[in-house]
């Protein structure tokens, strides 16, 4: 009995994905646990393993690499040795050598006239949808595309929205329109954090230098233990507060914004967090992070300091309650007043200042507790010994 190979659901919100490629060839023997194909889900590229033993058979009309496929779509079969695949004729056939797997998706067809007109008008027809009976691109399709593109700058390029981009779009829109986002900003003195980092750099034995994102992830995790209302999410009519902090780290990749997750960040040391995020970010940037590594965070840290951004309003990554944005660290003059005085200067010093921006969902938590959380983060930034000892 042939076993069907179907498109799996990689995450609860996944309805379709992109079939990337087979990792086994038609006719090849597959063992349970072997990786048999790659699938791009909402966020991650996943290598899907076989649940059974058998010989892989790929029907001629199976989805081509690059095709968008719905969850549950049939990709192929596993058959027993000598067994006929369901798509094969019932007459006995001599086994054929494995078909070479095609790497290019089928190109759209275009009528000669439409092709000529596309050249005349400079229309890139490869991405057009044909309205002809067989899906052929006809002249009218090209002219329509040309009319639309003349309304745009001549350099406009059109690419289909990728599954990753679509998820980002939906979640960012939800973060602004479903949540009730409010952003608080606070300028903090990061001099001690800078000093801590410099000392670690000097230390020959340090295996990994934590980034400011790592430092703030550690600090935020610590503060969230004391302010669990910010480590919450809304589920139907309930507010669910997690005892563990799963820290999302916003990462810019070619595919778009992704947030790999450091699990149980509250229980991990700074260097553990640093080592873990370094590996996670590398896997995320190269598309190798698994779907599980990209979901389930309870709080997110987002850093734009490397782009010389002072402050910004991060968008909540629903269903989380809050997100912490990190601005750049700059040297500033700071005036310290004589104790008890209102305008007498005790000293003017140069400090390394940084603006933290906390966006929280006002549906779950009010302004004062959110402010108290941000204030606690400020204290922990300014006095690292407070959390180094825990």
């Amino acid at each position, binding site marked *: 009995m042939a076993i069907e190979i179907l498109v799996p659901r990689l995450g609860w919100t996944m309805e379709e994905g992109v079939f990337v490629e087979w990792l086994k060839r038609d006719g090849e023997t597959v063992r349970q646990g072997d990786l048999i194909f790659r699938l791009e889900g909402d966020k991650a590229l996943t290598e899907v393993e076989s649940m059974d033993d058998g010989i892989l058979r790929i029907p001629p009309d199976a989805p081509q690499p690059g095709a968008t496929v719905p969850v549950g779509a049939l990709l192929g079969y596993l058959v027993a040795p000598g067994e006929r695949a369901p798509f094969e004729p019932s007459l006995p056939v001599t086994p054929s050598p494995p078909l070479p797997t095609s790497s290019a998706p089928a190109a759209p067809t275009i*009528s000669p*006239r*439409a092709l000529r007109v596309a050249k005349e008008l400079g229309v890139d027809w490869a991405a057009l949808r044909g309205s*002809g*009976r067989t899906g*052929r691109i*006809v002249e*009218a399709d090209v002219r329509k595309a040309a009319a639309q593109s003349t309304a745009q700058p001549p350099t406009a390029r059109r690419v289909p929205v990728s599954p990753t981009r679509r998820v980002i779009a939906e979640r960012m829109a939800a973060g602004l329109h479903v949540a009730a986002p409010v952003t608080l900003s606070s300028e903090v003195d990061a001099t001690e954090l800078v000093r801590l980092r410099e000392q670690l750099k000097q230390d020959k034995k340090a295996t990994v230098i934590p980034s400011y994102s790592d430092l703030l992830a550690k600090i935020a995790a610590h503060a969230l233990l004391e302010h669990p209302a910010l480590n919450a999410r809304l589920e139907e009519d309930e507010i669910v507060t997690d005892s563990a902090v799963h820290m999302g780290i916003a990462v810019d990749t070619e595919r778009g914004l992704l947030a790999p997750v450091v699990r149980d960040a509250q229980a991990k040391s700074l260097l553990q967090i640093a080592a873990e995020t370094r590996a996670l970010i590398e896997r995320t940037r190269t598309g190798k992070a698994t779907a599980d590594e990209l979901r389930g965070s309870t709080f997110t840290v987002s850093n734009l300091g490397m782009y010389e951004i002072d402050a910004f309003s991060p968008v909540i990554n629903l269903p989380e309650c809050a997100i912490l944005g990190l601005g750049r660290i700059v040297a500033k003059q700071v005036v310290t007043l004589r104790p008890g005085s209102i305008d007498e200067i005790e000293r003017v010093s140069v400090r390394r200042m940084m603006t933290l921006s906390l966006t929280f969902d006002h549906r779950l938590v009010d302004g004062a507790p959110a402010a108290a959380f941000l204030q606690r983060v400020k204290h922990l930034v300014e006095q690292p010994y407070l959390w180094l000892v825990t």
Partner: protein
Amino acid sequence: MRELTYTAAAREALAAAMAKDPSIFVVGEGIGARGGNFNTTAGLYDLYGPMRLRDTPIAERGFIGLCAGAAMTGARPVVDFMFLDFILDAMGELINQVAKMQYMSDGRLKMPIVLRGSVGVGGSAATHHSGNYYSIFAHIPGFRVVLPSTPYDAKGLFNTALRGDDPVMFLEHKLLLNTKGPVPEDDYAIPFGQASVVREGGRDCRVTVVALAAMLRKTLDACDQLAKDGISVEVIDPRTVAPLDMDTILQSLHKTGRLLIVDETFAPCGIGAEIAAQAVDRALDDLDAPVKRLNGAHTPTPYSPPLEAAVIPNAATIEQAIRDLLAE
């Protein structure tokens, strides 16, 4: 302008030519005192007598050979077959002698012979009297094959047929013979190889239809229906299938991008296949869809009226074919 029937228009051309040129004579069955089964020679016997309107026995190959000899020696015979189907008995004479004689004689001998007869499906003429043979004759080098669809064209093309030096097949669709239309009294000639754009499409016109003989009228009826839905169609009547005016067809195709050939006769190896092949060959980059043909069924023509109607295109099937092509 005065209106004449298709037959009367052609007869006017014949009568005027016979008055001017004593070398023109007509042979055929019943074309003398009887005036022709289809009135093609009505009244001419009284004017020119039995020497120039010569009734013949049923001996097609014989009188074709006789007329071929007369043409070679300077006369201008008009052979009236009544039903063109009867020409089949003279195919050897026609293809081997009439069509080739000018070539064989290096042009020293001429072959100014007009071979006329009714063609086409209609009126329960049944399978021996319903043939269309233009594709067969257009296949043979040496023949001019003329297929008028209106009284105006019938007179103008007949005049040209009577003035050239080549053998001309003058094929008159039997359903057109009694149709009326405007015909000028003056002596005009329509050159062979000039198609007529019968209905010009608008700027947004996306389909060209080539319609032959009796199919032209049905196509125009279909176009009237389509116009109610705002669909514009450009209609071309080739008028002669040899020579074939592809340039006019291709000019239209360049404008519209789609081509349908409506041809009453059989599709295989027919003139529609020839037009399609030349369109693909010469105007591939103008084609926005496959070239389509709408033909009669590939079958002997039935006698039964409903069956006879079923084997040839009509306005409704033409309309559907145009809609289908536009959806390609």
